[in-house]
């Protein structure tokens, strides 16, 4: 079941440039467990889209199967959503993107979806640089099937059942970097201040924007000994940067420190203002991002922030040289070569 949110809101809710309030970006009431990290992510998506004044109906939300994949019901109720099959969101999103290059595609997935059953599809969506935001709500556990270890569970991490995981985890950010992802960020569902602007930067990015978000599972993987628990992440999280998102044609009002800040102008004219906490890291260098992650891991720390971006990359439609118009809008006149050409083709086969 999904429940509708009561329609009453404070009459003076702030409005964005389109005249919408946050209410216009909400979805149905979540049916996830109270305290689930995923709900915080849904709220961060709502806030990011509201602040960026994205028309809700110009967003397509796509997901696979699992707790994370249920969440598109809980945000952007005026957007079309597609809860597809387990691990196959990337292909559905790729196809949807082929049909209409003008919409904003937000794919939501989990660690079961992305790191196990749909690993192949994830990998190839990255390679193709499909223009979309790909969020992996990573809790290191299979929630809907009640608590099995996932492929991102760290070695030694204990789930509710108390058994330490014995297998090597898959680090999705490293894999995305190695595959040539053009935007890679790591974040934590509990850190909204960092997460919202990262989502905004990912939306502004032209190409495949991957955000791995550690999102604790309060029911099955929040026990002491779990490396995806709230307490553990709070104690071990280390930001490489924090981010301000500045919309196109808006003045930068945030403080800017020449020594530690860096401005990145995005394709749509918006600006990502990075406050570097780790000054030696170059976010335009994959090598730098990969070694930073290795270093932090060795110190038992979880590095968050935007790890890498290439704001000038070519997304798949540019590579393919597809027409600027959405393919789905083309009609018989544009698509059908007609009877005269068919007769010529007949002739070539006589």
């Amino acid at each position, binding site marked *: *079941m*999904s429940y509708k949110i009561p329609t009453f809101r404070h009459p003076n809710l702030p409005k964005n440039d389109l005249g919408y309030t946050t209410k216009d970006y909400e979805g149905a009431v979540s049916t996830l467990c109270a305290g689930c990290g995923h709900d915080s992510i849904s709220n961060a998506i709502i806030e990011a889209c509201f602040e960026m004044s994205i*028309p*809700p*109906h*110009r967003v*397509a939300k796509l997901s696979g199967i699992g707790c994370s994949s249920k969440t*598109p*019901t809980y945000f952007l*109720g*005026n*957007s*079309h*959503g*597609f*809860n*597809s*099959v387990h691990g*196959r969101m*990337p*292909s*559905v*999103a*790729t*196809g*949807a*993107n*082929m*049909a*209409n290059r003008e*919409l904003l595609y937000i794919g939501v997935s989990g660690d079961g979806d992305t790191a196990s059953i749909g690993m*192949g*599809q994830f*990998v*190839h969506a990255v390679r*193709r640089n499909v223009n979309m935001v790909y969020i992996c709500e990573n809790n290191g556990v299979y929630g809907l099937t009640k608590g099995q270890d996932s492929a991102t569970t760290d070695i030694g991490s204990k789930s509710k059942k108390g058994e330490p995981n014995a297998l090597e985890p898959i680090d999705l950010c490293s894999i995305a970097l190695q595959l040539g992802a053009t935007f890679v960020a790591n974040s934590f569902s509990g850190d909204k201040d960092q997460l919202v602007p990262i989502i905004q930067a990912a939306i502004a990015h032209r190409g495949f924007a991957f955000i791995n978000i550690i999102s604790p599972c309060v029911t099955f993987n929040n026990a002491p000994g779990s490396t995806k628990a709230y307490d553990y992440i709070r104690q071990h999280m280390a930001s490489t940067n924090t981010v301000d998102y500045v919309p196109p044609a808006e003045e930068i009002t945030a403080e800017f420190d020449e020594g530690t800040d860096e401005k990145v102008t995005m394709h749509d004219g918006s600006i990502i203002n990075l406050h570097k906490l780790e000054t030696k890291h170059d976010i335009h260098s994959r090598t730098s991002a990969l070694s930073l992650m290795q270093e932090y891991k060795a110190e038992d720390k979880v590095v968050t922030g935007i790890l890498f971006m290439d704001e000038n990359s070519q997304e798949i*439609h540019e590579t*393919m*040289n*597809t*027409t600027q118009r*959405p*393919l*789905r*809008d*083309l*009609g*018989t006149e*544009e*698509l*059908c*070569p*007609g*009877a005269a*050409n*068919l*007769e010529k083709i*007949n002739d070539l*086969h*006589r």
Partner: protein
Amino acid sequence: MKRDIIINKFVIKFANVNGTGSASANKLFSRAVFRMGVPISPKNIFPSNIQGLPTWYEVRINENGFLGRRGGIDVMVGMNPQSMERDITEVEKGGYFIYDSTRPINPDFKRDDIDFIGIPLTEKCREMYEDPRQRQLFRNVMYVGVMAALFDMEMEVFKQLINDQFKGKEKLVAPNIQALETGYDMAAKLPNCPIAYRIERRDNVGNKILMDGNEACGLGAVYGGATVSAWYPITPSTSVIDNYSRYCRMFRTDKETGEKNFAIVQAEDELAAIGMVIGASWNGARAFTATSGPGLSLMNEFLGLAYFAEIPAVLIDVQRSGPSTGMPTRTQQSDVLSAAYASHGDTKHICLYPSTPKECFEYTAMAFDLAERFQTPVMVMSDLDLGMNDNMSEPFEWDDAKRYDRGKVFNEEDLENMNEKFGRYLDIDGDGIPYRTYPGTHPTKGAFFTRGTSKDEYAIYTENGEKYIENMERIQKKWKTASTVVPKPVIRKTDKPCTVGVIHYGTSEASTLEALHHLNSLHGISLDSMGIQAFPFSDEVGQFIEEHEYVFVVEQNRDAQMRTLLINEYDFDPECLVPLLHYDGSPITARFIRHIIRDWILQTTTSPRRRSRFY
């Protein structure tokens, strides 16, 4: 050997080595026959291999226009020492074996009841060409020249074809013609040239064309308005996409900017391929994939989603021999059941069964209209025989007044004027088909959540059993509606009342019709026939079976899959449907069908009174 001259009615088979360039030489031969106005049906019989293994090209020449495989070889062109022993045994009594006599034939292989004609082709090539690759390629053209002389064909036709073939590469014309003439001259000097089999000009081809089914499907997708294609390479379907791509580059690319009105994605596997098709169709584009049995197996989960969430999808299944990897370069009609009922749960899918390139073209184009009209997957069930062999076909036709049927879609204006709440799965018109909306249409109306889980009319998740059944019943109603719209069977009745019928579909058609013709002319047996064109079955299919006491179901698989489908969908006594099965991977022959039907009628109808019904 004293012989009768046989004109325009024989079967020739070329035995070659894979990867030696023989395919284009063989094609040159068959096109020359075709251009002389004589109907042909060539069949590639090739291994799952790139280079080195035996491959054959069998051409049936028949001026009466029988295009199925006949069975039996009259003239064998044995260019492959590896397969020579077997090739010699395959020649019918009184036939010919043409070979390269540079090396003598093993005397153990010799037969007295056929003629051997040796021509030292390799020796000649060694004399004429330095480059080993040229020696190999021109030897192929040379044996075509040999055939031209032996069958007493018009050299001008060959020369014209070579000119056509190398348009833009004129430098290649002269050497090819030289090789052709060399072969011709070598054969013409032989005392028994021309041989007893001849090819004479006729006017029996009319305006027909020669094309393979995969090209026809690819072209059909272009004409049908497909803009998104996602696929994973698999024999024998790959050339569907190659041809779609080729025709899109020709007709859908802006001459100045190079911008494309199409998108082709080579997916990482078949799961992704169908996922992309479903994503694109959900978002309002016409999208399709092409695959074969193993790919269809992988697509099952997604096909169930498309069925249940009601998303259009077009799939071209070029069937090959299964199960598993089976015989990947041999034909079969063995995906009938796995396509019709693909996926878990109660599912069924619209299937179309083309038997000619023209039907490949028309059904592929039609598949997009059907998929969008019924918001469901549609599969075009071709096979390797149809897809990868040149087939003589009626020319393709298109009505320029035709507009695509995009099905029931609410646009922005519809939604703006709508006062009631939009319900994605509401059966407003009573035909079971609901209205959909594309993402991004209207700021506040028409959005819904597509899901593979059960839902109510408003696309809201529900596990309510009644709602679930209502929804499943509505989809079933849609299916009934579809049965009135899909192509009707082609029924051919004899002029006298007849209690036995024959059902065929897809590539079993040509051989079945020829068998029926000969059952009549040779044995006096006349039977009604029906070519099934689509699933769901329209009422006419059931009526035809009811009208006959026994009905043969001719198909190219072991388990009589179409028969099973018929029994499953109707209440017939299974006894009345007699399986007639051929599944060794080669196309079914008219002879095979004729013998089985003849023997069945002779053996199973022991009472003279009963037997009399068939004559």
